[in-house]
């Protein structure tokens, strides 16, 4: 393992210190990342969080138009209730707080515990479960939350910024999740600092299809083929679950160690696929946004837009990881 770290135990702490040093707009306190300017009276607060190792998600999405606070756990480990409780209390501007929770047992349990304990704040929560690689059935923990989390944080954030009440922000957040699907493919495993070696072995001839964002192996192993074929596999999985139509928001997301050039190559194929289905890429994002440490690979996330969602996507945002309009 070769990583730019000091010790395996201090990676989260050290990285948060770096974020605080780099971004005066952020405040880092007790393992929670806040907007430095604090809560705005009357605005619904947005809190998310999850294991670390997915940067810029979530900590890099704190700021105007997105999150009010993010609770980073240890590497790939959901945050603990204390962090979520602190964050929830701190960002409440009187209009209540939305918890944006990716559907993993750990995230769900810890956010639930926290929500129960902050009786003094009105809390709603939305569960993100966009990963079509997982069958949503009695035989799984349900679909994982992956790339669509960014869509929800952005759009719900814009709505909250515009002054919408908690129930409406929660409703739209849920709608964004429902209209979004993702699928990921890994070319390599990642290496967690504590394990010190790759989570799984993958020969040069193979890829993992249907991965999540925690370095887990995927649903199946397949042959390493061209960008066109890999993009096709991801898009078929998405299209098979939610037929593509109309205006789409499309994200081609890198898993952390995939160069931007390769993501653009994938995006070209994704765009061609979308066109082939008679739909339209109305908005797009290409880059490393929802990552899995140093994994090589990509995921595609698609959201079926309507006018409202497009407006919410286009609204100004000012965070370390996503910024436009200001």
């Amino acid at each position, binding site marked *: 393992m070769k990583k730019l770290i000091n010790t395996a135990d201090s990676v989260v702490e050290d990285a948060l210190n770096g974020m605080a040093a780099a971004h005066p707009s952020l405040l880092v306190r007790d393992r929670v990342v806040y907007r430095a300017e604090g809560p705005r009276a009357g605005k619904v607060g947005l809190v998310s969080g999850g*294991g670390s190792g997915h940067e810029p998600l979530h900590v890099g999405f704190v700021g105007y138009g997105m999150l009010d606070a993010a609770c980073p*756990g*240890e*590497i*790939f*480990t*959901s*945050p*603990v*209730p*204390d962090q979520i409780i602190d964050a929830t209390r701190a960002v409440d501007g009187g209009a209540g707080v939305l918890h944006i929770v990716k559907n*993993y*047992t*750990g995230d769900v*349990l*810890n956010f639930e*515990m926290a929500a129960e304990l902050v009786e003094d704040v009105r809390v709603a929560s939305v569960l993100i479960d966009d990963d079509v*690689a*997982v*069958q949503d059935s*009695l*035989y*799984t*923990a349900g679909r*994982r939350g992956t790339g669509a989390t960014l869509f929800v944080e952005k759009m719900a954030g814009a709505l909250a910024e515009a002054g919408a009440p908690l129930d409406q922000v929660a409703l739209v957040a849920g709608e964004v999740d429902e209209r979004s699907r993702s699928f990921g493919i890994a070319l390599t495993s990642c290496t*967690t600092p*504590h*394990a010190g070696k790759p*989570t*799984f072995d993958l020969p040069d001839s193979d890829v993992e299809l249907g991965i*999540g964002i*925690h*370095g*887990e*192996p995927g*649903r*199946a192993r397949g042959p390493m083929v061209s960008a066109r074929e890999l993009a096709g596999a991801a898009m078929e999985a998405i299209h098979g679950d939610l037929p593509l139509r109309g205006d789409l928001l499309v994200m081609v997301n890198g898993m952390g160690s995939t160069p931007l050039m390769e993501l653009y190559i994938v995006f070209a194929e994704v765009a061609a696929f979308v066109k082939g289905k008679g739909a339209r890429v109305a908005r797009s994002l290409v880059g490393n946004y929802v990552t899995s440490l140093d994994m090589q690979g990509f995921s595609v996330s698609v959201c079926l837009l309507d006018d409202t969602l497009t407006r919410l996507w286009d609204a100004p945002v000012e965070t370390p990881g996503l910024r436009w309009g200001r």
Partner: protein
Amino acid sequence: MEADVFVAWFEAAARMVHDERDRLTRLDAAIGDADHGTNLDRGLTEVRAALDGSPPETPGQVLATAGATLIRRVGGASGPLYGSVFRQMAKSLESPVTLAGFAAAFEDGVVALERLGKAVPGDKTMVDALTPASRALALAVRDGVGVREAFRQAARAAEEGAKATIPMQARKGRASYLGERSVGHEDPGAASAALFMAALASVVA
């Protein structure tokens, strides 16, 4: 059983989990996200520190401290789940603690876990180690077996339960995403649950 037995339990568990940390993480690497050993080791180190810092006076206080500390420090799925076992035990346990009382409280703890995680036996989770352990304790009580032997049987049942997760296909937790690929691997949470029970047995050995 006095508070010191319970303190010793968590100290033994902390030691054993620390020693087995890499094995637990490797098990989690195979069908999860490679953090279970680190998670529990971190949590139990904190439990130890908490128990050292202000030694509780009653078994219930030990369990309550352990449960709360695990919830406050572990995160992930296992933090709240283990935490809820011990917090429920703390609530259920009546003093003075007898084997029967312990077994009943333990059963309550496992039920609380099942309720929180919505897992049932066969889902390939820690439940698959803890329910056999609980049953072994209940049988020991029924059969009038001594504490030492009862804990040993519980440990054995947990260990067998953990091994029995190998052929299972996961239906809960992160391993469930793997579908059939989860078959053939021991569940890391079941393995750590077996360590908890082995620690208990070691305390009264």
